[in-house]
């Protein structure tokens, strides 16, 4: 057993209202740059829907993830090492820009500069790729809220699969008429897999998994733009920066996570549906688990990889493998471990890709509840709910294709737990005694069910995000702990270097680190110059908290005494 720690996320899909705040804040933080206009590290898809990029789940087309050889070994679906290298000159199955969308802006300049005339000036859409006028025909969430689903609903790879399935006759096919529609939102980030196929596809070996927290990153200095990772990732969460010619992906906001802050998408989530915490897993068994012969068993295999941080054996092994004690403590309080393994309500996205994804989802019960309420049923009654979960086959089948490689029994079990929680807690909140038969029906105790309710429904900030900070004794390894306000050339704009776009040495830049800012915001005294002259007579107004007047705020201040002495004298 080799114990490793992994930062994981759980999203409770019942709470997602599809507001795209996570996507927008993520984009503002990470991908509002040239070359990444079409890049969404976080995107929110309406399901059923095609997703982003379009139909990315259709691995017969896109060749992402792993498959098994006839001898039962793992093999990249896009081919072995030699085959990958032979395809390097023109990556055979890379999505085109049309599979994403052509990013655009508007020609706002005309609004200002148009000459006086009878017609109102119009800001025409301009392509950010060609700079020419463009027609907007698609975007990252064009089929939001089932827009266009009556025409394009069948293009969802899961709907296509369900429709083609021999299990159902034509009557029962997934219907998109409005009154029969079910829908939910699926926010997606990089899965930070235990067995990442993007990493395995990278010819340069530039993609790596951090030993400390399992975050998967692209080393921008080693990436050579061979583009194989884009094919390799079945979730299509590696994007090609067309300006720098390098691959980029979700970083799990590692600079924030290292100092104990939740990721931007989690922090800004309006529905508070994201949970962050640690998983401990056995790194020695990952490959074997990913090679589980039956796809339906992959979820269980993945669950088996997760180690119980309260188990003395695991604790001893973790200590041996260098996991700090406070990380073990965080692992014991981990909400993601609780949801995935203790309560077993969180499921991995597409376990059949065999990448062992580490962003888990609590499947939504609300489409079923909505159907029941719209038909006038009591949607919080246990028997009604349980009956509906059995009867409403299409949502369950659909969710099973997403989260359990088709195992409807697992989905039904999870939905029943959620239904039981709902039914049980209704009694409690109405002042009645809880019915112990309800938790019993789903194999839980009243206490466990109540704890699950606390975590899922009350969902306090401190319970949702249990993020151990990177270690102080290893602080010199951190990127975000320094406090330097030196700057020569201002925020990092770069122009085309002599060897093409984005080449050349990085320009020095002073981005105030989180720690410096936090210290200033939480300290009692006003921001003043440190004896060591930390501010060097300059003040960054963007970071000035309006509290006091630090040296250098006003030009030409006398160094002998405070400038207001003169003012006082003048008034007198």
């Amino acid at each position, binding site marked *: 057993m080799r114990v490793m720690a992994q930062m994981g996320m759980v999203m409770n899909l019942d709470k997602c209202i599809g507001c795209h705040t996570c996507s927008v804040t993520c984009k503002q933080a990470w991908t509002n740059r040239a070359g990444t206009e079409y890049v969404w590290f976080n995107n929110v898809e309406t399901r059923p829907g095609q997703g982003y990029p379009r139909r990315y789940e259709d691995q017969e087309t896109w060749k992402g993830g792993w498959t098994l050889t006839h001898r039962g070994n793992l093999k990249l679906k896009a081919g072995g090492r030699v085959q990958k290298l032979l395809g390097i000159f023109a990556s055979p199955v890379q999505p085109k820009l049309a599979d994403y969308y052509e990013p655009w802006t508007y020609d706002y300049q005309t609004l200002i500069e148009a000459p006086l005339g009878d017609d109102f000036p119009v800001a025409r859409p301009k392509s*950010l790729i060609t700079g020419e006028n463009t027609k907007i025909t698609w975007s990252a969430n064009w089929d939001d809220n089932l827009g266009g689903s009556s025409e394009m609903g069948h293009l969802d790879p899961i709907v296509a699969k369900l429709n083609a399935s021999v299990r159902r006759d034509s009557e029962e096919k997934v219907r998109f008429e409005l009154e029969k529609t079910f829908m939910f939102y699926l926010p997606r980030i990089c899965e930070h897999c235990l067995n990442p196929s993007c990493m395995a596809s990278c*010819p340069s070996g530039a993609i790596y998994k951090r*030993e400390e927290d399992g975050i998967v990153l692209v080393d921008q200095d080693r990436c050579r733009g061979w583009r194989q990772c884009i094919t390799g990732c079945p979730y299509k969460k590696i994007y090609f920066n067309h300006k720098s010619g390098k691959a980029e992906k979700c970083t799990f906001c590692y600079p924030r996570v290292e100092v104990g802050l939740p990721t931007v998408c989690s922090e800004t989530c309006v529905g508070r549906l994201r949970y962050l915490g640690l998983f401990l897993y056995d790194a020695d068994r990952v490959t074997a688990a990913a090679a589980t012969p039956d796809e339906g068993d992959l979820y269980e295999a993945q669950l088996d990889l997760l180690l119980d941080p309260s188990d003395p054996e695991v604790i001893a092994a973790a200590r041996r493998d260098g996991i700090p004690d406070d990380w073990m403590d965080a692992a014991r309080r981990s909400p993601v471990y609780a949801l995935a393994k203790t309560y077993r309500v969180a499921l991995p996205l597409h376990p059949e890709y065999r990448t062992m994804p580490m962003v888990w989802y609590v499947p939504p019960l609300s489409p079923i509840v909505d159907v029941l309420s719209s038909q006038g049923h009591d949607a919080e009654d246990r028997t009604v709910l349980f009956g509906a979960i059995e009867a409403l086959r299409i949502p369950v089948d659909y969710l099973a294709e997403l989260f359990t490689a088709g195992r409807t029994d697992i989905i039904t079990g999870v939905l029943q737990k959620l239904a039981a929680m709902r039914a049980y807690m209704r009694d409690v909140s109405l002042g009645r005694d809880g019915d112990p038969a309800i938790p019993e029906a789903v194999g839980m105790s009243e206490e466990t069910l109540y704890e699950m309710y606390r975590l899922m429904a009350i969902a306090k900030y401190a319970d949702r995000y249990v993020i151990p900070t990177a270690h102080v004794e290893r602080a010199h390894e951190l990127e975000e702990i320094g406090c330097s306000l030196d700057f020569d050339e201002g925020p990092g704009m770069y122009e085309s270097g002599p060897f*093409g776009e984005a080449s050349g040495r990085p320009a020095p830049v002073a981005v105030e680190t989180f720690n410096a800012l936090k210290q200033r915001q939480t300290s009692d005294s006003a921001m003043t110059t440190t004896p060591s002259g930390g501010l060097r007579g300059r003040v960054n107004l963007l970071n000035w908290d309006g509290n006091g007047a630090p040296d250098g705020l006003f030009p030409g201040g006398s160094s002998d005494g405070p400038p207001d002495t003169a003012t006082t004298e003048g008034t007198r």
Partner: protein
Amino acid sequence: MNTFLWGVLPYLCVASLVGGTVWRYRYDKFGWTTRSSQLYESRLLRIGSPLFHVGILLVFFGHVGGLVIPESWTDAVGVSEGLYHFNALLFGGLAGVCTLVGILILVYRRRTTGPVFMATTKNDKLMYVLLVTAIVLGLWTTLVSVGAGSDAHNYRETVSPWFRSVFLLRPDVASMAAAPIQFHVHAIVGMLLFALWPFTRLVHAFTAPLHYLFRPYIVYRSRDRQTSGNRAARPGWSGVGTTDRDRRH
């Protein structure tokens, strides 16, 4: 003049190639990429790029065979000059034509596809000119040799000894000077191309990912130890709609 061309220029070019590569690797790892434009256009790329790359790899190995291996060695294994020459012209010519057709497709694609053309720098253009010239001149030497039939110039008695002598630090200027003009021009353009190499996108060839065949699939790495404390921001953070995208307003 001969002394400069065949005795001095080679060393200048080698210095530029080696020094430039070291310098670029040291200071511009972020710019070290293929700068693929497949996202913009893939139909022509799918034909042109493999054609060119496979062709140029064959051409490379052909040059290694012709320049590095002395004629006496091939004689020793019983390959006659005629047989060698026939093979060299046949396969070299085929590979050269593949390369030329490939790069012509790629240049056509680069010129006619809007986004690809916009992503083309002056540096790229200069590089393309040199590269295409070198390929065309190389094919010219082949054509002349084919035309001359059995009387063709045996470059393995002139160019090859000179090439090896350069690396032995005793440049054999006289034997290179004896070669016909087409070899001279091709060699000069080739040397210039190599001198420019480290400063162009061609550097990606030096990091051809052959180690992929041997490395483990899953890569674990500890947190970056090199970037302690505050560090300068990396490139890649310029605003959307930067100058080159505005060019067409």
